[in-house]
């Protein structure tokens, strides 16, 4: 366990080195977040009834921008794709450790370090925004604790999914195909583009059958009070289920991939 913690720590240390990236991210995220706030304002004013409170939507947007690095599926660890592509995976296979756990902890370290660097300035700015674009506090202390718990579980589901994408790359020459196809759809289905409650009923029901609804959708909606208290236990159960299922699928697929590794050249 200590070994895997060290992977986490090292990736964390590497992650917090990129200060400039954090500064530029702040600008991007603030501009993007504000744009979204304005767009939903327009929707709220023209239609009158939104599936979420406007203030809840604003909090959702700022959380999404602040914690982008935790939950986005398109920014998987490029070093890992690099290793698979250029063959440095050779060295990973020469370690007396499970490659799956190694990459899992490494991805977690990368995501958390990046998120910590970015979320503080973004959240600070979001709380200082003028009304109605101001980020709200969590609806209750209990909701905040549940938010933390489901955020950790959501991160687990997200990473377990990313692991599948890494491993699928062993079966094709270039990872681009998988990444484009999967992450585009996932971005949408996880509520990263528009919050899931905005989906038409029929599509919402389908989305809720997929693991992607158990990533950021749950913690963010608990934070802003959009998810009814009665729905929270089943949401957490869903997260646990999908985390276990995706991890198991990843481990099984890895067993298959390991046998067919071909490190080309030199």
């Amino acid at each position, binding site marked *: 366990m200590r070994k895997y913690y060290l992977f986490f720590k090292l990736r964390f240390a*590497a992650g917090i080195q990129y200060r400039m990236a954090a500064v530029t991210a702040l600008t991007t995220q603030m501009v993007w977040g504000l744009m979204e706030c304005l767009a939903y304002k327009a929707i709220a004013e023209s239609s009158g009834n939104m599936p979420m409170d406007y203030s809840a939507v604003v909090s959702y947007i700022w959380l999404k921008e602040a914690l982008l690095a935790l939950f986005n599926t398109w920014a998987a660890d490029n070093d890992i794709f690099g290793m698979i592509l250029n063959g440095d995976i*050779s060295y990973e*296979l020469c370690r007396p450790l499970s490659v799956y756990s190694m990459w899992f902890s490494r991805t977690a370290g990368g995501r958390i370090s990046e998120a910590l660097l970015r979320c503080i300035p973004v959240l600070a700015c979001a709380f200082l925004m003028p009304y109605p674009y101001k980020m709200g506090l969590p609806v209750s202390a209990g909701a905040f604790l549940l938010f933390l718990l489901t955020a950790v579980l959501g991160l687990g589901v997200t990473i377990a999914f990313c692991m599948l994408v890494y491993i699928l790359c062993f079966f094709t020459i270039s990872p681009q195909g998988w990444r484009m196809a999967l992450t585009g759809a996932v971005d949408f289905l996880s509520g990263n583009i528009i919050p899931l409650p905005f989906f038409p009923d029929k599509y919402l029901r389908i989305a809720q059958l997929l693991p992607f609804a158990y990533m950021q959708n749950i913690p963010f909606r608990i934070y802003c009070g959009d998810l009814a208290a009665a729905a929270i236990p089943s949401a957490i159960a869903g997260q646990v289920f999908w985390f276990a299922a995706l991890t198991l699928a990843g481990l099984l697929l890895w067993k298959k991939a390991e046998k067919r590794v071909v490190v080309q050249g030199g």
Partner: protein
Amino acid sequence: MITMENVCKSYKVAKRDAGFRAACKALVHREYEAVHALNNVSFTVRDGEMVGYIGPNGAGKSSTIKILSGILTPDSGTCVIDGRVPWKNRTEHVRQIGVVFGQRSQLWWDIPVIDSFELIKEIYSISTPQYNNKLEELTQLLQLQEILKTPTRQLSLGQRMRCEVAASLLHEPRLLFLDEPTIGLDAVSKLAVRDFIKKLNEEHKTTVILTTHDMQDIEAIANRVILIGRGQILLDGTLDELRRAAVSDGNGNTDEPLDLDHVMACLYRNLNIL
């Protein structure tokens, strides 16, 4: 003790003619060709031996190293290293071996070398006193004092390679596989790496298998040479035996003093493995 018996490995390679039409055709129907990288390779290496593994480009050298280190699973044949089958007991196996792939890197790109070393310490569960001793020894022998605190990305190739070699030896492996460890190094770094490997073998009786295209590496390090070509082992002996084989099969101009590279070129040509 390493025993390899009748190991075969082939790769499937997609081939097509040049040009747009052929590319479109390949989109629908792909033609594969099996390339036999290793064809009935057998050899034994005793403990404490230093073996140079040579052959022209594409002969199967790296494939062998990858099988020995458990990365690649052969199609058929057996390979037993100290009683373990590398690709079956991968995790136990790799604990006992050190590998340097000259063309790849195991150091984390953006952080100081010493941090990568600390991670390796944890990965192999090396105790702190043992780690400190080994690190000091390696630092001295490979002259790493100046570069340990530098991020990998800012090291020159020679500096990085010295760190790579050190990284592969922190856990005191009994076997060391070196795949082109001196590629792209300047004279000073080359000599440092060579001397180091010799010393390692003398002091710790580490078994070393080394692939290279630099015949001076072989001359300096190996007391036994295995020549592979087109996936088959063609010669197995000392460097002198190799030299004799090159000259005797040649066109009779024996008195011409040949340097090692010419010996090899001659040999490759005679054996028709280019």
